[in-house]
C-alpha cells in the first residue's frame, strides 16, 4: 500500500490451511460446469471475488465494501478471500482455488508484481477476468489495472491544498519519508515544477526526511519549525509523516498557525482535523477504487472491453472511463478529506 509493507510469512501456514479447505469445497461446488467459462455467451458469470493484500486491513475493508456495493448494483455475487498476513506468495493459493471454482472475475491488490503472475495467467486461461487495483502486477498478468492516482494528480492536489491554506504566498517545507523513496521523490519533483509555474510566490525552503518512522518524523517537524521560524506550511506526502507532524503541531504554539497537508488516512487524521490542526488532506477514496474495479470486471466479463488502450466502459455512479496505456484505468483526482466528510470514512 502506501506505508511500509511488511512481509511476514507467518500467515502462510494459516493461508495454506484455509486454501486447502477452500479447494475442498470449491471442487464440490463447481465440478460440472468448469468448462463453461469459455463459451462467453449465455448467462454472464458475475461471480466476482475480491482478493486484498491481507484481511483485517481497514483500507481494504473500505475498498472491498465499495466493490460489494457495485456488484450488488449489477446483480452479481460478491465474495472476499485473502491471506491473514501479506507476503509475496501468500495470495497464490487463493488464486488457484478461485480458478478451480471458475469465478467470473478476480479483483486483486498484488502483494508482489511478479510472484502471483503465473497463478493469475492460469486463471485467465480458464476464462476468469483479472483486474488489479491499488497495487499492480506486471501488465502481462492481468486484464486491467485500476490506478488510484497519478503522480501528477497527487502532487497537484497537495500543492493546491497548501496554497489555498496559506493564501498563495509564503515559505513551505516538505516532510518526506526516506531520501530514496521513488514515489516520494517523483511527487516532490512534480511539486517543485508545479510550484514554479503556478505559485511563484510560494517558496519551498526545505525538504526533510522522517524515514516513515513516527518518532523521526515527529522530531523532524520540531526541527523544521525551529529552523524556519517564518514557515507558513508543511506538505507531507506520506501517511506516517503527516500524522506525526499533526501530532507535533497539535500540542505546539504553532497549532492553527502553520498549515499542514499531504497524504493521510481518515482514522489517523481524525483527531487533528477535529481539533483544527489540519484543515484538509488528500488521498484517493478506497471505496470508489473498489467500486470502479468491480465495474471494470463486469465490463470485461460482458465482453464489452478487452483491456486494450482506448476501450471505454461504464463505471456506474462514477461515470464513464477510458482505458489508458498498459491497460490501466485512472480513478481520477485524489479525494480531499476535511471536517465535513471525514466522519463518513473508517479506514
Amino acid at each position, binding site marked *: *500500500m502506501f*506505508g*511500509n509493507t*511488511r512481509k*511476514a510469512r*507467518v500467515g502462510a501456514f494459516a493461508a495454506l490451511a484455509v486454501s486447502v479447505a477452500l479447494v475442498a469445497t470449491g471442487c464440490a461446488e463447481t465440478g460440472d460446469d468448469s468448462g463453461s467459462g469459455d463459451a462467453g455467451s449465455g448467462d454472464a458469470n458475475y461471480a466476482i471475488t475480491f482478493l486484498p493484500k*491481507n484481511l*483485517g*486491513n481497514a483500507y481494504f475493508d473500505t475498498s472491498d465494501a465499495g466493490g460489494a456495493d457495485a456488484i450488488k448494483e449489477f446483480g452479481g455475487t460478491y465474495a472476499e478471500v485473502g491471506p*491473514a*498476513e*501479506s507476503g509475496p506468495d501468500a495470495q497464490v493459493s487463493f488464486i488457484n482455488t478461485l480458478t478451480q471454482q471458475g469465478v467470473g472475475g478476480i479483483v486483486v491488490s498484488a502483494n508482489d508484481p511478479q510472484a502471483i503472475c503465473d497463478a493469475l495467467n492460469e486463471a485467465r486461461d480458464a476464462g476468469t477476468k483479472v483486474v488489479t487495483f491499488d497495487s499492480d502486477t506486471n501488465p502481462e498478468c492481468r486484464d486491467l489495472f485500476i490506478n488510484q492516482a497519478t503522480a501528477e494528480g497527487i502532487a497537484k492536489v497537495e500543492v493546491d491544498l497548501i496554497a489555498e491554506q496559506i493564501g498563495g504566498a509564503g515559505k513551505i517545507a516538505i516532510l518526506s519519508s526516506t*531520501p530514496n523513496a521513488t514515489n516520494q521523490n517523483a511527487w516532490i519533483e512534480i511539486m517543485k515544477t508545479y510550484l514554479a509555474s503556478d505559485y511563484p510566490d510560494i517558496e519551498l525552503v526545505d525538504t*526533510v*526526511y522522517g524515514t516513515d*518512522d*513516527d*518518532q523521526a518524523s*515527529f*522530531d523532524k517537524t*520540531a*526541527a*523544521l*519549525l*525551529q*529552523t524556519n*521560524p517564518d514557515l507558513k506550511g508543511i506538505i507531507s506526502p506520506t501517511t*506516517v509523516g503527516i*500524522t*506525526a507532524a499533526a*501530532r507535533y503541531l497539535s*500540542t*505546539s*504554539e*504553532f497549532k492553527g498557525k502553520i498549515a499542514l497537508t499531504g497524504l493521510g488516512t481518515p*482514522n*489517523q487524521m*481524525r*483527531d*487533528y482535523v477535529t481539533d483544527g490542526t489540519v484543515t484538509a488532506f488528500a488521498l484517493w477514496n478506497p471505496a470508489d477504487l473498489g467500486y470502479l474495479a468491480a465495474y471494470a470486471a463486469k465490463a470485461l466479463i460482458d465482453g464489452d472491453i478487452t483491456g486494450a488502450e482506448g476501450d471505454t466502459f461504464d463505471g456506474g455512479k462514477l461515470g464513464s472511463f477510458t482505458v489508458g496505456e498498459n491497460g490501466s484505468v485512472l480513478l481520477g483526482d485524489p479525494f480531499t478529506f476535511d471536517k465535513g466528510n471525514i466522519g463518513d470514512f473508517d479506514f
Partner: protein
Amino acid sequence: MTALIPAPTVGSRITRGLGSFVKARETGILLALVLVIVAATVKNPNFLFSSDGFRDLLLTPSILLLVAVGQAIVIITRNVDLSVGSVLGLTAYLTGRLFIDIPGIPVIAVFAIGIIAGGFLGLINGALVAFAKVPALVITLGTLYAYRGINVLWTGSDRINSSDMPASFLALGTQSIMFIPVLTIIAVVVLIIAAWYLRNQRGGRELYAIGSDPAAANLYGLKVTQRLLAAFILCGALAGLAGVLYAARYGTVSSQAGAGYELNAVGAAVIGGVAIFGGSGTVWGAAIGAYLLLTINRALPILGVQDFWQRAVVGALIIGAIVLDRVLALRQAKRLVEARGDLQ
C-alpha cells in the same frame, strides 16, 4: 573509590568535590552538550527561548534517557541488552491495546502493566544470559528479533492512532508542570534513584564488581546470577516504562515503534563514559549522553548541517568517546604500573 580517605573536613570535601567534578568523564560530555545548546541558541534564539524550543529540549531525550539508564546498568555488569527497542515497541503497542480493549482503564494501571510487561521481557533476557551462560550480545540480538517478530505478528498492518487513547493520557506526553515537561520529571526521578542506588547501595556496588571481573566476583561469593537477573529485569522494566511514555508522546504506534532505540541507548551510554566492557561509568553519564545524542540531532539542522551528515557526526562522537575511554584506561594502567615501581 575515594572512600578510603578518612573523615574529610567540609572545606576539603568541597574542593575535592569540585576537583572530581572537573576530572569526571561526565563533565566533558556535559560541556559538549552545553556547547551544542549555546551554539544553536546563538544561531537561532528559538532553540532555547521559545516555549516549544525549551520544552522540546527537555522532552525529546526523556524517553531515550530512561532506556539509556537501564542500558547503562546492564553494560556496567559487562553485558548488553540489544532488545530494548523491541521491548519498547511491544509495550507501546500493549499500551494502545489496553486502552482499546479495556475502555476506561485507569492510566496508572496502564503504566503498571507496561512496566511489568517490560520487566518480564527483561527477565527472559536475564534468565537466558545468567543460566544458559550465553553472551548477552547473542541472546539479546536474538530477542531483539524475536520480540519484534511477536510485535509484527500481533500488530500486523494495524496501528494505534491517537484517537484510540484518552486525551488525559496523551496530554502526559506533552504537558509541563512549572515549565518542566512531565516526561522529563519522570525520567529524572528514575535517574536520581538509579544513580543513588548504584553509588551508595551494596547491590549497586556489586554490579560494578561483577562488571570489573565476573570470575573474581563469583569467587568472592557475590550473588552474580541474582544481580544479573535484577539488572536485566530493571533494564526491561525501564524500556517498558519508556514504551508507555512513547505511546503518550507520539500518539501513533505501529509495529516498528522503537526500532533502532537499542543502538541509541548503547550509544548514549558509551558517549556518556560507561565502559563497554563494564565495571565503570555512571547513569548520569548515560543520561547526559542521551541528551547530547538527541540534542545534536536537533541542533545540527539549525546550524546548517545537512540531514545526511548528522549520522556521521553521531558516529564520530561515539568513536571519539571510545578512543578517549581507551586512552584514559591506558594512562591509568601506566600510572598504576609506575606507582607499583615506586613502592619497590
